[in-house]
């Protein structure tokens, strides 16, 4: 909210210079966004904290705050209305409040014989500095008093109020109102209105209606200074999508005791500037008077919470400067009476904040806490995330962070029933929460392919799926990586490296058997895809992305992806490594080449070899797979290095040859397999 420097100066004689004032407010009350010259005045744009709306959305409130901070004297203007004994307010208007929870107070006054015209220059200037457009003296005064006290006011043309009757009630269904700015609004039972005998004439706390508008001919006005419940105004404002200076103030809550001061200030100024006669008496509906609160402040707690000792005299001084009244003193506590304009203060901690900030947080010395020496617990998620990321980094993968959302196009890759939909997306890119990290990574490839030939990237992040059965959203972390090119085995090697790095050994790869739904979606290449398994548990997939998907993302190269469930991976990971004694006996290496049908899996051959001589073999390395013209059609040649080594003796050359012969015999039991020399 913007404040006029000159205006504040009316209340505080020796007000500090504008920039100094901004600095004081900044440190001890509110952030000042901007200080700027405006003609002969200065404008301060102050970010009043929402809790202080009730008192500080006003020049008096800010002045009071400045006086407290700087220890200066404050002079609030008086509002002595000279009432005309011959006319009575109740002859001009009557007030009926139908709902006292929605309207806590309704104060009205009437002023007659007024002369509507332009406001004097000083008043226009003040309004303009504060960003309001001058209209006429009556409306301007209502606005001026709002800026001054924080209390929104409204002025009706007294002669236009049907039946001289004001009824504060909720609107009826299908009632309508045209507001001062000629906008038409449909009302309903949730919207509180000010009505006359016939129809709504204002939306309570938000905006006046066109009907009883003040115009040049207006002679008698009825002033409204009311207190509407914040929730009522907020609801109506949201419903009508209409926010005004008044609604904003009511939403933050106002002191019901403020209506009287404000209405008297307005009547006083109208008398002065529009030459009106104030009718005798104030109509005041105020069934439940709000009284000052009392809060008990424990001085030990004050010291303990701030971590600083503030002398008692200083505490008292601060409270008094804030117009809080320290009343009863006991040895270790004070009872503080809080004036009703400080609606934000209700618990001892609120008082401690007031004392702390005015005392100055800069005076509180930094002190390290006294705590017992409990070392922090290891967070396994964080620990393993780091290990995984470092392994992948070492394998040449760069890490990306993608958005948690996917758009409609990307959603076609997934089963709609499992998608979590965003209720209020800002753009079509945010239609659903991501059910997989794959679309994000594919987009990354698409964007980067112009600049890089070979791309290796991964992401570790949360995905979201709707579990219709339980009716809840499942959130889990996935680890997904992608590499460009026809690199299935390279990526499989990376997965092996990763799993071994995590202390997981019982790994194998199983053919991928998609469910019928998955087949339709076709993210994966049907042949070049495997389930990654540890023990009996499937922990993820490894495979090439289908051509259809690659094309739809406008990607030029083939892609291989691993997509692993991090939660499962984390649970399987282990830091333990057990040393295997190094054999003291020499190793012997023999090569073995087998001609097998193309469809034979390497693992079948390996299993046979291991079954024969597992305990004497330290390592088998498949060093070549060859398919070519020299070979019979439909065959491929597998070439292995086999490293023989026993744990307890030296294997003689003859022994090794014997074992190798045994392996050959076993392999050739399969008539389609042929060991080559």
């Amino acid at each position: 909210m913007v404040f006029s420097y000159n205006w504040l100066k009316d209340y505080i004689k020796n007000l500090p210079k504008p920039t100094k004032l901004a600095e004081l407010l900044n440190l001890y009350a509110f952030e000042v966004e901007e200080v700027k010259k405006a003609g002969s005045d200065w404008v301060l744009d102050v970010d009043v904290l929402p809790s202080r709306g009730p008192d500080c959305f006003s020049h008096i409130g800010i002045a009071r705050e400045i006086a407290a901070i700087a220890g200066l004297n404050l002079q609030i203007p008086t509002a002595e209305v000279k009432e005309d004994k011959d006319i009575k307010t109740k002859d001009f208007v009557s007030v009926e409040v139908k709902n006292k929870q929605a309207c806590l107070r309704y104060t009205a006054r009437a002023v007659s014989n007024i002369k509507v015209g332009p406001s004097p220059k000083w008043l226009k200037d003040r309004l303009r500095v504060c960003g309001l457009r001058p209209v006429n003296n009556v409306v301007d005064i209502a606005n001026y008093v709002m800026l001054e006290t924080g209390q929104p006011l409204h002025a009706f043309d007294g002669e236009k109020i049907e039946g001289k009757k004001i009824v504060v009630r909720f609107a009826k269904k299908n009632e309508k109102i045209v507001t001062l700015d000629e906008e038409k609004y449909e009302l309903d039972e949730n919207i509180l209105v000010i009505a006359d005998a016939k129809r709504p004439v204002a939306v309570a706390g938000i905006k006046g209606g066109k009907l009883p508008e003040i115009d040049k001919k207006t002679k008698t006005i009825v002033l409204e200074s009311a207190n509407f419940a914040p929730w009522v105004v907020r609801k109506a404002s949201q419903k009508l999508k209409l926010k005004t200076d008044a609604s904003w103030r009511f939403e933050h809550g106002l002191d019901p005791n403020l209506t009287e001061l404000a209405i008297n200030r307005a009547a006083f100024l109208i008398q002065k500037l529009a030459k009106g006669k104030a009718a005798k008496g104030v109509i005041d509906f105020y069934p439940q008077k709000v009284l000052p609160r009392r809060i008990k402040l424990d001085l030990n707690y004050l010291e303990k919470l701030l971590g600083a000792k503030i002398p008692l005299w200083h505490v008292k001084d601060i409270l008094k400067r804030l117009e809080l009244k320290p009343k009863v003193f006991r040895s270790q506590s004070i009872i503080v009476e809080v004036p009703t304009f400080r609606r934000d203060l209700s618990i001892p901690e609120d008082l401690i904040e007031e004392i702390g900030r005015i005392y100055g947080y800069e005076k509180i010395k930094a002190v390290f806490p006294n705590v017992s020496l409990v070392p922090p617990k290891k967070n396994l998620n964080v620990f393993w995330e780091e290990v995984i990321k470092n392994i992948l980094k070492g394998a040449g993968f760069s890490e990306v962070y993608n958005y948690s959302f996917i758009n409609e196009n990307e959603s076609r890759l997934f089963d709609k029933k499992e998608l979590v939909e965003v209720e209020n997306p800002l753009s079509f890119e945010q239609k659903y929460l991501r059910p997989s990290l794959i679309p994000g990574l594919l987009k990354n490839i698409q964007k980067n392919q112009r600049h890089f030939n070979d791309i290796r990237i991964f992401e570790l992040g949360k995905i979201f799926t709707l579990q219709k059965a339980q009716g809840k959203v499942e959130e889990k972390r996935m680890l997904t990586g992608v590499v460009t090119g026809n690199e299935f085995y390279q990526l499989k090697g990376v997965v092996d490296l990763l799993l071994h790095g995590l202390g997981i050994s019982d790994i194998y790869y199983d053919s991928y058997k998609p469910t019928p739904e998955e087949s339709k979606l076709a993210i994966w290449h049907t042949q070049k895809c495997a389930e990654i398994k540890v023990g009996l548990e499937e922990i993820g997939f490894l495979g090439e992305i289908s051509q259809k998907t690659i094309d739809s993302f406008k990607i030029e190269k083939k892609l291989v992806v691993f997509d692993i469930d991090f939660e499962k991976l984390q649970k399987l990971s282990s830091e333990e490594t057990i040393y295997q004694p190094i054999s003291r006996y020499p190793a012997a290496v023999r090569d073995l080449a087998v001609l097998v049908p193309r469809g034979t899996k390497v693992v079948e051959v390996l299993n046979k070899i291991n079954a024969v001589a597992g305990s004497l073999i330290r390592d088998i390395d498949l060093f070549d797979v060859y398919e070519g013209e020299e070979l019979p059609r439909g065959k491929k040649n597998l070439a292995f290095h086999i490293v023989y080594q026993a744990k307890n003796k030296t294997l003689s050359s003859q022994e090794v040859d014997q074992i190798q012969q045994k392996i050959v015999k076993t392999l050739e039991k399969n008539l389609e397999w042929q060991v080559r020399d």
Partner: protein
Amino acid sequence: MLVNLKLLKKRAQKEIAQAGDLKLLNEVFKRYLGKKGELTFVLRSLEKIPKAKRKKIGQEANELKKFLKIQFDQRAAGLKEKVKKEDEEKEWIDITRPGKRPLVGHLHPLTQVKKKTEEIFQAMGFNITEGPETENEWYNFDALNIPKDHPARDFWDTFYLKDGLLLRTHTTPVDVRYMEKNNPPLRIITIGRCFRHEATDASHESNFYQIDGLMVGPDVSVANFKATIQEFFQRFFSKPIEIRMRPSYFPFTEPSFEVDMSCLVCGGKGCSACQRTGWMEMMGAGMMHPNVFKNAGLNPKNWQGWAFGMGFDRLAMMKYKINDIRLFYSGDLRFLKQF
């Protein structure tokens, strides 16, 4: 036997010294100590010498043999050294040519800053905690003393999901979740992804990271907060840093503050980076509101403590002088490969 051993010694020494390479040295060796060498000859012919002289000459000749062997060895070692040196000199390489780097990847800057932050707080005894990114209204708002139908709720622009949940707008809900399950005293930090329903620009993103810290004990104070957070900033930015607290408002803390630190660029004198104020706004913080303790099942009479929340992307942006938050989520390898 008239060979003068003294002369022979002199001559041999001279020739050894003059032998310019190993081959020449070998020839000299042969001449004196070879099968037909002069000294060998002397030693062989000792028996022809009368006994009286034999002993003396024999002794001298043997000593000379030992001496010359040492001389040969030393000279040979010296020559070998020289050869190696010459060989090495031929192996000149251009050390200004670029090195061949192994292919390694890059960790995301936020990952790196997260690790550093976690290390600093763990060193101060803080546990690292986590919580769900999809939250309910209770943990995200109500439990944090942010009432329904209150303008304070407008501060957190929220993405709602069709299934009654929302995307957490801050990591503060984790404080409540943690306090429900763990009794104080406690020290935790949470770094996680949060969401704001607002338009994207260079400093705002629909998803972003926030760090939340919480310390609760029987007497954890504002003074303790100041010390802890100052220590964090000093360690994080590796330089002396001042902390300033200004009044603020958060429904879940009372008192509440904005926390500024002395400008990283000018150190507090005022420069363009800090809009001439000497300070940089870093975080919101405060003493946990008694209602939050109650909502987490703790008795506020027994416990007090501080909490803070800070935009984590911004911390990384300051560290690496990045001017656009969107780069973090762009997946642009030209950006990511710089870290």
